[in-house]
């Protein structure tokens, strides 16, 4: 059906990381501050049950809950599972047990890790908190739980009010380009600009897409495009930001290659920012060949060709 399925799609690892910072509100602030002081807090619900971690509102009646009580640090394993190969970010790096633990004085159990040999784990076993040597205010101030009989001495607490938590989140992916994008990326590695034409509406997309967004069918015919075109619209970047490569002001523009029906974004350099205009004719300035890879960054920027501007009609349908 297509001419593009005979090659493996390109892929690359993608790691996404973000430190989520969250304000805690009154209940969780008290919980986190207490953890930093090596105390565990629960809150009494409308039905008298003590919940930990303390919900702000009753799980049944949704009433605001404010009757805080100390629970733990000892408790009983209500259920457990075994983690033979700990995953990134989990409380322990050696095999451990997950458990729901009902702390002394609480009615509902909380989730945490238990550092114990596999053979020692059983429902109903007694465990107690092992505090983290470096408290930050949060659930990770409990390093894990350990069997009560083997509990060691705790480090000294660090009393300070906690109103925020920061949770680093990191996920790893194998990110795959579509077959059509892969053709484009292989082409540009050789300095060629390959678009594809929709079999229904005839529009030429670069980079090509898995389906024509107008017709919802895969694009098929490959079209080689020149490395010159027309500025359809642009903006002057005046704002500095993290990771910026150029010093403002500079121009980011949509460039419509001759023969294409969709513009892509690139830089317009080698002329003052205030001279860039809609309809300006531009050409690609390629990086040295030895720096080329499967990326549109092989084109360092576009520069004016000096040709007369394209009439508005030529690009009016591509804005």
């Amino acid at each position, binding site marked *: 059906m297509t001419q593009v399925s005979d090659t*493996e*799609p390109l892929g690359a690892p*993608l790691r*996404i990381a973000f430190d*989520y910072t*969250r304000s*805690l509100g009154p209940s*969780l602030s008290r*919980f986190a501050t207490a953890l930093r002081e090596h105390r565990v807090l629960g809150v009494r619900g409308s039905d008298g049950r003590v*919940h*930990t*971690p303390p*919900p702000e509102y009753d*799980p049944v009646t949704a009433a605001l809950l404010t009757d805080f009580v100390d629970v733990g640090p000892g408790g009983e394993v*209500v*259920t*457990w*599972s*075994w*983690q*033979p190969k700990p*995953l*990134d*970010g*989990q*409380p322990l790096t050696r095999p451990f047990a*997950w458990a*729901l633990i009902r702390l002394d004085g609480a009615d*509902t*159990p*909380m*989730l*945490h*890790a238990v550092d114990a040999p*596999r053979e020692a784990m059983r*429902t109903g076993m007694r465990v107690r908190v092992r505090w983290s040597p470096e408290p930050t205010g*949060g*659930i*990770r101030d409990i390093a894990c739980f350990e069997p009560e009989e083997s509990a060691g001495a705790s480090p000294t607490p660090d009393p300070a009010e906690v109103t925020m*938590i920061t*949770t680093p*989140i990191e*996920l*790893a*992916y*194998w*990110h*795959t380009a*579509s077959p059509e*994008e892969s053709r484009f990326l292989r082409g540009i590695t050789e300095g060629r600009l390959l678009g594809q034409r929709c079999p229904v509406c005839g529009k030429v997309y670069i980079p090509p*897409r*898995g*389906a*024509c*967004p*107008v*017709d*919802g*069918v*895969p694009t098929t015919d490959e079209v080689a495009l020149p490395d010159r075109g027309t500025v359809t619209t642009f903006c002057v970047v005046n704002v500095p930001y993290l990771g910026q490569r150029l010093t403002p002001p500079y121009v980011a523009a949509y460039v419509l290659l001759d023969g294409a029906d969709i513009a892509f974004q690139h830089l317009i350099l080698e002329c003052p920012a205030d001279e860039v205009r809609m309809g300006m004719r531009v050409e690609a300035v390629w990086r040295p060949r030895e720096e080329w890879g499967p990326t549109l960054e092989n084109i360092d920027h576009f520069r004016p060709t000096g040709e007369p501007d394209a009439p508005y009609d030529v690009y009016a349908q591509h804005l």
Partner: protein
Amino acid sequence: MVNDVAVIGFAQSPSVPVTDGTTNGVEMLVPVFERALAQAGLPKSDVGFWCSGSSDYLAGRAFSFVAAVDAIGAFPPIHESHIEGDAAWALYEAWLKLRTGEADTALVYGFGKSSAGELRRVLALQTDPYTVAPLWPDAVSLAALQARLGLDAGLWSERDMAEVAARSRADATTNPLAQLSGKVDVEELLGTEYVADPLRVHDCAPVTDGAAAVVLAAGDRARELVGRPAWISGIAHRVESGSLGVRDLTTSVSTTASAEAAGGVDGVEVAELHAPFTHQELLLRQALGLGSSVRINPSGGVLTGNPMFAAGLVRIGEAAGRVFDGSAGRVLAHATSGPLLQHNLVCVLEGAR
């Protein structure tokens, strides 16, 4: 008077461990739309409302569902919506649109490329972000905690769980789109290693890439288009507390309440249950009050193919399929979302109306 709404078409991609396609699902969706619309006899241009379910966390990119709209061909402009969750809930949104007469046809789709990331770790981010997610409890470990609660309480045994796995794979031998199928011996299953004691590999749904689409139509439009629409006689969903400790994890009160609100299980002949772990099927059967005469998951269920964010919608499509082919008159589909069956949807479908 509000409109009656029926399922009139369903298609799904093969359930596979890895696809070559992108995380936006376009490559999987194009053929699925074609087949679902062909079954419904509905031209793409006549679809009144499009609604999808997927997850940016699974795709590893923001607004990943926007690229999926390419598979629709969204010109002239279409009426479209998306939910971050299983597409069974997108179907609920579409059902409301049709009930209120805002549209008379809809196409609902879901997709997920679970293989791109580490699914059990991605799902840890469904948990409470203050006191649970910072521990990164993966989905398999959490399910194992729930399984042991039931084992300790005598609600099910490891053998009962293995029997669910064996029955599912045997049923999937007649489902060419299943990822796992075949005759397996329960003794052999019980002899395998734990992946997360008390769960073994066969107790956990496989990691699956896939997509699915369901076509809905209202009233006379449904009658015009197909001979035997699967009428939605009831659909409802309920959610439980985000705090794991306050829930009774050995049952599913939200499933029970959803089924009641959807008209109850009396007369249901076939049930497609969205149970990614063997013990959860046993738990759901109890929560729904399904007797031994009810045929459970003739498709093989998600234990034989679990396309995330499409798998709940697939349950509705598979159940409707039993009505389309005349093998059942009243069927039930269940979908779940969130950790340990936190949020549940029940949809009851009927032939004659």
